[in-house]
């Protein structure tokens, strides 16, 4: 494998990890506040659909992004109402959101566009274009650094840069701001926040709203950045992979970057080498494509060391006497 191929695979990995990273950070906000969210998948799917539909209708990827965020946020608020306001079971609410998104996107897609659940293909301004960073072309010929800058770092859509910028931003919010302190506290011991005179409900709703926005960006990226339109079940389990990455990352933003990169890289390798020839044996494509999912199972089964979730995670907050 030569250097150019490596750069291409890494470049592909960056594109593929972006929705995972956004969803993973979305889950991080929600779960650090004590609300478990297995509905990341459904929210991304809904966002992909609303983003593609609006981008097609208006011809604007930006309006599509806004619609994507709106679609995802609506499902977030349903999750919040069920699990925070009405103190329902967070897992059941999440499952319901996944089913709702899965069914509603296809139903609405068929009703509106009549293409069997797809949206019409997007072109031109309906998609996010690739941004060429300054000097990318002039530096291209410089050895090593040139290709890394021009191929790997430059030439992605704005949403990819947003996703990567979210990592240090999330770290800073959690570690350095009042909101971050309270968010972490409410996920560990909501009573400590409540007795300090701060509303647990409001904090948790803020967290799931951020979760909704990030899932919305992730879904919009899938439909208007990575692909050109919405296809039925196009998230393909990425919401669950993002959850696995979140556990792998032990609910920390920088680790989330590493974990989602690993998943993106596996997917990129599988795309590049459908049948990986190792000389003695040839690994079939089915296995390569299944790799990220196999890794997910391994992580969720706890083979990567003990991950301690936020202590109050999954439990609705009830004032005790």
């Amino acid at each position, binding site marked *: 494998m030569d250097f150019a191929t490596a750069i291409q695979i890494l470049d592909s990995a960056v594109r593929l990890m972006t929705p995972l990273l956004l969803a993973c950070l979305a889950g991080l906000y929600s779960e650090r506040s004590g609300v478990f969210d297995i509905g990341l998948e459904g929210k991304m799917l809904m966002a992909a659909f609303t983003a593609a539909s609006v981008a097609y209708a208006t011809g604007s990827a930006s309006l599509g992004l806004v619609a994507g965020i709106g679609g995802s946020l609506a499902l977030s608020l349903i999750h919040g109402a069920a699990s925070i306001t009405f103190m329902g079971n967070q897992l059941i609410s999440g499952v319901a959101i996944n089913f709702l998104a899965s069914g509603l996107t296809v139903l609405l897609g068929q009703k509106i566009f009549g293409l069997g659940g797809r949206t019409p293909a997007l072109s031109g301004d309906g998609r996010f274009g690739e941004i060429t960073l300054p000097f990318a072309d002039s530096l291209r010929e410089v050895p090593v650094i040139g290709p890394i800058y021009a191929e790997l770092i430059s030439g992605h859509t704005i949403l990819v840069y947003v996703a990567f910028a979210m990592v240090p931003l999330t770290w800073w919010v959690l570690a350095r701001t009042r909101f971050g302190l309270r968010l972490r506290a409410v996920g560990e011991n909501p009573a400590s926040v409540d007795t300090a005179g701060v509303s647990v409900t409001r904090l948790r709703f803020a967290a799931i709203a951020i979760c909704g926005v990030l899932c919305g960006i992730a879904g919009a990226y899938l439909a208007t950045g990575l692909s050109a339109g919405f296809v039925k079940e196009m998230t393909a389990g990425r919401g669950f992979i993002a959850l696995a990455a979140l556990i792998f990352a032990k609910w920390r933003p920088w680790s989330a970057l590493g974990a989602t990169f690993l998943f993106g890289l596996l997917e990129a390798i599988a795309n590049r080498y459908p049948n990986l020839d190792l000389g003695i044996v040839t690994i079939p494509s089915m296995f390569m494509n299944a790799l990220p999912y196999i890794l997910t199972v391994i992580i969720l089964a706890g083979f990567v060391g003990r991950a301690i979730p936020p202590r109050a995670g999954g439990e609705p907050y009830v004032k005790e*006497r």
Partner: protein
Amino acid sequence: MAGASEPAGGRPDGAAPPAIELRGISKAFGPVQANRNIDLAVPRGTIHGIIGENGAGKSTLMSILYGFYKPDSGEILVNGQPITISDSQTAIRAGIGMVFQHFKLVQNFTVLENVILGAEDGRLLRPSLAKARGVLKQLAAEYQLNVDPDETIEELSVGHQQRVEILKALYRQADILILDEPTGVLTPAEADHLFRILEGLRDEGKTIILITHKLREIMEITDNVSVMRRGEMVASVRTAETSPEELAELMVGRKVLLNVDKAPARPGAPVLEVRDLRLVDADGVERLRGIGFDIRAGEILGIAGVSGNGQTQLLELLGGYPEKGSRVSGSIRVHGQELDLTGTRSDAATRRARGIGHVPEDRQVEGLIMDFAAWENVAFGYHHAPKYNRGWLMDNDAIRKDAEGKIARFDVRPPNCHLAARNFSGGNQQKIVVAREIERNPDLLLIGQPTRGVDIGAIEFIHKRIVELRDAGKAVLLVSVELDEILSLSDRIAVMFDGRIMGERLPGQTTTGELGLLMAGITDTAHVPDDAGIPPGTPPHAEAAGDTA
């Protein structure tokens, strides 16, 4: 901030208004009246004890003061100003700080982070953290409240965690500090240090409300004390003008003396022999400190004491389910045979197989499954018995038939074994538990608080059954906080205090006064004349304390 220096309206004498005044506070949770028409005045700059048994309503009252609950009726005045405390933020602004029994700390945060949580000065943390570091240093010097500000909470001892809670309140500039059972989790040395801190705070003009059920603490540190019983404030007195035994009686209360017809005991061979039983709970607090006693066949041993002095741990240990993480030593013998204190053969099922029946203190948590039908509850704990099973399957018809018999014999009302346990009244729930345990004909019956929350009729019935069991030659260990119950049922009385048995008395040869002293941990009763006991019928003291200048 409420106007702290404003002269109070309506006080012609010009005396400073109480820091806290409650007028006619009532609060009900469903059918349970947790607080009933509570009046309380806490003078500024004093330590005020609120004492009462578990469930007397102390914590509810303080939660109302801290904005956790809205009272159904009544009025709260802080420094003479009426105030509506709708949430904790209001309470904090009014200068009220609370140290809960179960700390409200974030375990993986540092001390500093916990202190500023909710009291940050701006959107960014750094300035608040720097400020808090300075304030903590100052408070540490002033009140002996030393804690490393950068340590995480989970690394701290329980005593230090409590200091963090106090620091949190002081950082929010609390003038009135409420502490709910602060010494329950502390070692004696830690408790002493806490008291020095509280005295220091009082001397600085802070007002402290100390909620406890430990008489020793009240006598040692408070200026005034109010006694609560069953949701009511039964007395408020100056600590210097009362005595432990008077307080013990006020707390436990006196009911109509129930006459239990019983012949003198004819004790046989020892059934239960307990020697040097010790238990250290998961928090490292020594709950039992060398308990020893015997119970013979045909004898009722009553254990008296203010709740929280190790009775619960003793019952749980004998019943085979000490709290997880407890360390246990000593010896328990039944019919001369040693019981395992640890391991798989120390569980409740093994204890039952050895002929030990157990009516737990809390029937709703340990005695019954509230959502299950009465007939199912009658079989629990004995559901492996051959008569309840047919091969691999449970014989539900047999269980139901058996349950109907028990329900009839124990006069459970309504006599419907298909009703869920929660649909019976407290007394009838208790009858279901008692029926299950007594009808198994145990050699030894452990029975905790047999008549707590039970109506008079059911009390008489349950007492009669206990005496019948004794007359059938069985041993009974009765644990109760009701002195009258202990006095009228027991053949011998042991008094527990702070994990020890302070002494044994015979019911005919002791007085409530003497027992009250033992319950307060005072063994030196030689000088107490016989008439020191308050004769039955004397109304509880009800004079208000406060500023009687």
